[in-house]
């Protein structure tokens, strides 16, 4: 289909002499969690549309792009709407897809394979970014952004209790010790928060469970990328002692010592990120494990403007457990992609537009203003692109440089999202005290075996 593109375009070039060309409209859809995301995504997409239109005009094509913004806060709700729209034949031509959904979307037949071999831009994406959108040897999406996860802390609170303002935890016990000191000296402050409820969906897996688990796993499993799914053996792997150590942290923090507040998370559900992120600003939450983009939420245009952010916000890479043969620093990265709906009526135009969206210019712009990390080597974080908050861009750059070398990724498997849902249920069970780590893990393994087949699960010591 794609090899016809030059032919079609050249026909389009001669078309004006035959008859006035019909205006073609393609569509793009994405979701956002309110401001500032709504505004900056719209600006980014409008920037891409302007470039796309002028490019097409040079070829004599009159095109328009319809933008469908969906103000849906919870990613899983957006996914449900998107999938139902695709199935009903009503989804946009270009769709915003979380990178870890790609394999199951492909298996369902919802994404068009992209002719990336004919595009020089493809080679500019970092190998890991190409890997995340490639499934069974074909590319299906372009990584629009990526991110790092880390631990934030409020320097004012740390100073009050006598903790160093440039705090660098070396192991889990450094974090727990700091939390205990804060609880003792500042009883009205929640010492530490990380997502522990099913309603937070993938955030509970990514910004929380894996950030602990990766620090407890054998180093080799993490660095080889076989820490959750072993690609050599084709099995889901559960390193039992590491998983139990991780779950014991949830029990310690949320149940036994109440260093974290599960109650507010349960009450707010899908919007639990709001009191947690505003809590760090308002000196109500001392430490928070979250993503790099949260800095954008604390910017002057953000959902929780924090004028003193650059002075009061501290951050540190997430340390490992401190046990022998584990990682010193851990991180897991994700990111969002744009892909082409397999049922599009305009695959050629959609691909042309997708290439603009995935260009160095557009990705540089989006990542600079949204505090994400660029996915292409020729895209850069530029403080000039975000005049309202240039220091956020610098902060982001520092985080990326400090943490990206240690990051890892989720397994690109079609079953992964369902496995992740089970993990979220496991975490919630332990964090709410509904079950102890051992019992909860046993029932998790049983459910995992039912989901992927007992022959595809291996429990390691």
């Amino acid at each position: 289909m794609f090899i016809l593109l030059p032919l079609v375009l050249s026909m389009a070039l001669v078309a004006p002499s035959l008859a006035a060309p019909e205006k073609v409209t393609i569509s793009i859809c994405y979701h956002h969690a309110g401001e500032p995301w709504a505004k900056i995504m719209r600006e980014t997409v409008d920037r891409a549309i302007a470039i796309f239109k002028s490019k097409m005009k040079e070829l004599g094509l009159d095109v328009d792009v319809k933008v469908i913004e969906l103000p849906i806060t919870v990613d899983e709700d957006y996914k449900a709407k998107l999938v139902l729209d695709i199935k009903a034949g009503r989804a946009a031509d270009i769709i915003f897809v979380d990178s870890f959904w790609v394999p199951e979307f492909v298996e369902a037949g919802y994404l068009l394979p992209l002719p990336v071999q004919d595009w020089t831009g493809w080679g500019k994406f970092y190998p890991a970014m190409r890997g995340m959108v490639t499934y069974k040897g074909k590319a299906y999406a372009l990584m629009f952004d990526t991110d790092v996860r880390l631990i934030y802390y409020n320097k004012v609170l740390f100073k009050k209790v006598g903790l160093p303002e440039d705090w660098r935890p070396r192991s889990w016990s450094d974090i727990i010790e700091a939390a205990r000191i804060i609880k003792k000296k500042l009883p009205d402050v929640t010492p530490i928060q990380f997502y522990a409820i099913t309603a937070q969906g993938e955030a509970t897996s990514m910004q929380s469970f894996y950030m602990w688990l990766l620090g407890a796993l054998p180093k080799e499993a993490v660095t080889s990328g076989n820490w959750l799914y072993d690609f050599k053996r084709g099995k889901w792997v559960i390193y039992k002692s590491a998983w139990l150590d991780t779950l014991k942290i949830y029990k310690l923090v949320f149940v036994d010592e109440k260093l974290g507040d599960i109650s507010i998370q349960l009450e707010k559900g899908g919007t639990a990120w709001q009191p947690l992120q505003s809590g760090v600003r308002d000196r109500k939450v001392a430490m928070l494990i979250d993503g790099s983009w949260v800095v954008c939420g604390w910017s002057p245009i953000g959902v929780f403007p924090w004028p003193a952010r650059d002075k009061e916000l501290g951050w540190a890479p997430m340390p490992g457990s401190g046990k022998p043969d584990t990682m010193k620093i851990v991180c897991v990265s994700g990111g969002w992609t744009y892909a082409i709906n397999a049922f599009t009526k305009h695959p050629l135009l959609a691909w042309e537009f997708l290439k603009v969206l995935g260009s160095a210019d557009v990705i540089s712009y989006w990542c600079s203003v949204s505090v994400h990390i660029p996915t292409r080597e020729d895209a850069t974080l530029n403080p000039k692109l975000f005049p309202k908050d240039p220091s956020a861009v610098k902060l982001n750059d520092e985080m990326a440089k400090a943490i990206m070398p240690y990051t890892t990724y989720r397994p690109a498997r079609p079953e992964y999202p369902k496995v992740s849902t089970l993990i979220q249920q496991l975490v919630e069970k332990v964090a709410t005290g509904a079950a102890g780590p051992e019992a909860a893990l046993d029932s998790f393994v049983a459910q995992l075996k039912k989901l992927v087949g007992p022959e595809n699960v291996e429990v390691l010591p």
Partner: protein
Amino acid sequence: MSKKDKNIFFYIIMVLPALMLMSLFLLFPTFWGVIISLTDLSLLGPSARHPKFVGLLNYINLLSDPLFYHSLTLTVWFVIGSAIIGQFLLGLFIAIITYGKGDLLFKIATGLMITSWILPETVFAYIWLAYLGRDGLLNQLLRLVGVGPIPWLVEYPLQSIIVANIWRGTAWSWMLFSSALKSVPKEIFDVADVDGVSLWQKARYITIPLIKRHIVTDLILITLWTFNQFGWVYAMTGGGPAFRTLLITIYAYLRAFKYLELGPGAAIAIVVFLINLFVTIAYLKLIRGE
């Protein structure tokens, strides 16, 4: 063709449009639901493109699904607590104590009760969220007496939706019983009053036997409505926190439309349908058996 045959022919013609509409909008979707429940149809992954017939596998899996039992148990408690104990008994009690009273205060109370019943579900859910929230009205009031704040929806989620449902649904039972009582000759109560019969004895020996049919009708309807309750509970709690308000209807919805597993979702829906059928038949037998 005899006259009788002609009549039958005429009847068939008359019910045909209704039958066709029912088939189209009721029987066919139910039948389709049964078919889907026998497949592994999903909206994502390989079974979205190539759904397979799996027989009764979805139903068998439910038997070993802890969340299924959990949601079924919660739903039974929800029905017993809010419909049978709450709406029914409270509705009957209010109907008895307000019987024969027509003053202004009573009329205002009537208006207020009906308001709770006719509120749109999302509005209703929002009002209760605002009422029970950490900074909600209830906690503000409790603070005046030095209690709380209590995060009601976290500490007592099932109790919260039971109370909300009693508040919402009692008006219906009360209206039904009020109008039923109007059909009872007032003289009976006058005689009873002369004989100095207590309120409890009046209810036990006069009121309840006389409106027995209404009671069964009320119980059938509120049991089914409560069992099938979905909208406002989902809007209020989403089945949470930690699945503690996961009514069976919410579980079916989550499986089908959040996790996008249409096969297992449909299987739960069919089980709900069968339970409804069973409850209705049991109540109807109760009426006929009197």
